[in-house]
């Protein structure tokens, strides 16, 4: 498992797509973190006389219907999207792993109950369920995150359960039991560290998906509310101007594309690097 930075650079040089994905992700994270340094304006500063201007040196991506700088808002949007994506995935994976490993290790009744619950959630299309949950809890970015999180949990439960079932029969896990180690220690020490690879891949791919779903929810007005500079919400307001003022909707859309694609390429790359068998 020990992979030196040198080796990673070597692998990236050979695998162009992973390299592109990594660059995209690093770029998005960088602009998100450094947003106040990069941006010339305040994201919510309105300047009505300068509304709906085409891209220029003063406004790289033009301005919106309130005269706000689209470039600034898109950059600040990266912050929101990354935070949303990361927190959804980390929380969903955390909860999912917890129940998944219990389900796989304990088996029997507990397993059946947990699996029935995940099947129930999985039987809905994830977008529809997320939509219904948010609508029930009330629109807002936090509620959207919560809803997407709930929808994503079963994926991790299933993944973990499968891994644990396979690893439970490994000789070293059985050996650990004959050495008198407690079940909790066996799960923490022997099982979880050995299923990190697929988990990491699933999580990286999941960030892109989570961002996409959260943006979609904002687009239909259930997620982030104006004036929050969220990409999906921006496109939602921009769509009535899309034909005459293409830049307003195009740039947030482009950034959603870069982010989601970046995480997907990176996830595929991580899978290739950590699991040579999947590279066929």
């Amino acid at each position: 498992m020990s992979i030196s930075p040198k080796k990673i650079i070597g692998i990236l040089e050979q695998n162009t797509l992973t390299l592109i994905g990594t660059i995209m992700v690093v770029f998005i994270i960088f602009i998100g973190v450094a947003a106040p340094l990069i941006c010339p304006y305040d994201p919510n500063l309105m300047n009505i006389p300068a509304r709906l201007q085409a891209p220029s040196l003063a406004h790289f991506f033009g301005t919106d219907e309130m005269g706000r700088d689209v470039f600034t808002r898109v950059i600040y949007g990266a912050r929101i999207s990354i935070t949303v994506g990361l927190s959804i995935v980390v929380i969903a994976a955390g909860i999912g792993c917890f129940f998944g490993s219990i389900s796989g290790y304990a088996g029997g009744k507990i397993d059946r109950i947990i699996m029935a619950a995940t099947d129930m959630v999985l039987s809905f299309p994830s977008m529809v369920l997320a939509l219904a949950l948010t609508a029930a809890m009330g629109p807002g970015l936090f509620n959207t995150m919560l809803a997407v999180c709930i929808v994503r949990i079963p994926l991790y439960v299933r993944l973990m359960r499968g891994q644990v079932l396979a690893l439970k029969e490994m000789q070293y896990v059985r050996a650990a039991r004959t050495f008198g180690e407690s079940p909790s220690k066996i799960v923490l020490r022997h099982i979880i560290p050995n299923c990190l690879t697929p988990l990491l891949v699933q999580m990286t791919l999941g960030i892109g998906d989570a961002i996409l779903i959260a943006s979609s929810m904002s687009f239909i007005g259930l997620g982030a509310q104006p004036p929050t500079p969220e990409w999906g919400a921006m496109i939602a307001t921009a769509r009535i101007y899309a034909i005459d003022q293409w830049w307003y909707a195009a740039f947030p859309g482009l950034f959603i594309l870069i982010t989601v694609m970046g995480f997907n390429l990176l996830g595929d790359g991580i899978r290739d690097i950590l699991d040579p068998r999947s590279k066929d």
Partner: protein
Amino acid sequence: MENILSIKNLSVSLSGKRGIVPILHNISLEVEQGHILGIVGESGSGKSMTAFAINQLLPGGRKSIVDGSISFCGEDLTEKTEKEMTKFRGKEIAMIFQEPMTCLNPVFTIGRQMKDVIMTHQKKSSKEAEKQAEEMLEKVHIRNPNRVLSCYPYELSGGMRQRVMIAIALSCSPKLLIADEPTTALDVTIQAQIIFLIKEACKATGTGVIFISHDLGVVSQLCDTIAVMYSGQIVEVGRAADVLAHPQHPYTKALLASIPSFTPREDGNDTLSAIPGMVPDPLEVITGCRFAPRCSYAMDICHKKVPPLQIFADGYSLHCHLQKEVEN
């Protein structure tokens, strides 16, 4: 000498999808301090199940039906709860396995894994545990223990890993070591070294050893006592020399006859002799002796009546109708 382990009339049935499957029938065994008991038999004869029964780690866990007693230093293990058993496992009863290649967790260093086991059972600081791990590696004749401690399992050969396993197993000075075919996956020279190690550990610390194997050559080298198992039953128990030199049970005879030999046999027949048929499925109902369908000496009574246990001098015992016939 004192008995560390004495199993009396142990019968085990597993309850699974196929219903209740009897896997061990009325087994009695004894292990003395500093002695090595070999259990031999074909695959599927219940050797490993006996080991897991002692450890209370039978597949299916607490759902398996256990009858009889397993007395370990005066305490009946069949009456212990799961929590009480974890205090025995590793500390009092340690186990090593057939596949050293997969017995160690691939993501942690040897040192970390050894320390883990040591600290589970002994109140030691991380430093003391590491020191003990190093000493244990020296005891199993690993040349530079310091380097091996910081190695990952994939960096070691099979023989080295089996040594590490033995070091872990012995690290809490168990009273009983169960070795489940520990040399099967290793080549012959390494086998010899591992056997030597187990013997050394046993004689030096007085640890009792149960050595499970299907290799009669290895068993004859190592064991003081031999128990021959067939289809969940013990058919013959005795001192290693007695059992191997003068086998009484037809199954033992057949097993010994199946060992390939380098020299041509006297009768000029050089086809490898084998036991006809297969070990019966545990669910198969067999009245009488379970070996009778494959036995070349089988008599009428063998198919009708379970052979009684006959006890002779020097701890020799036998389950066979044939012996009685000869006596009569």
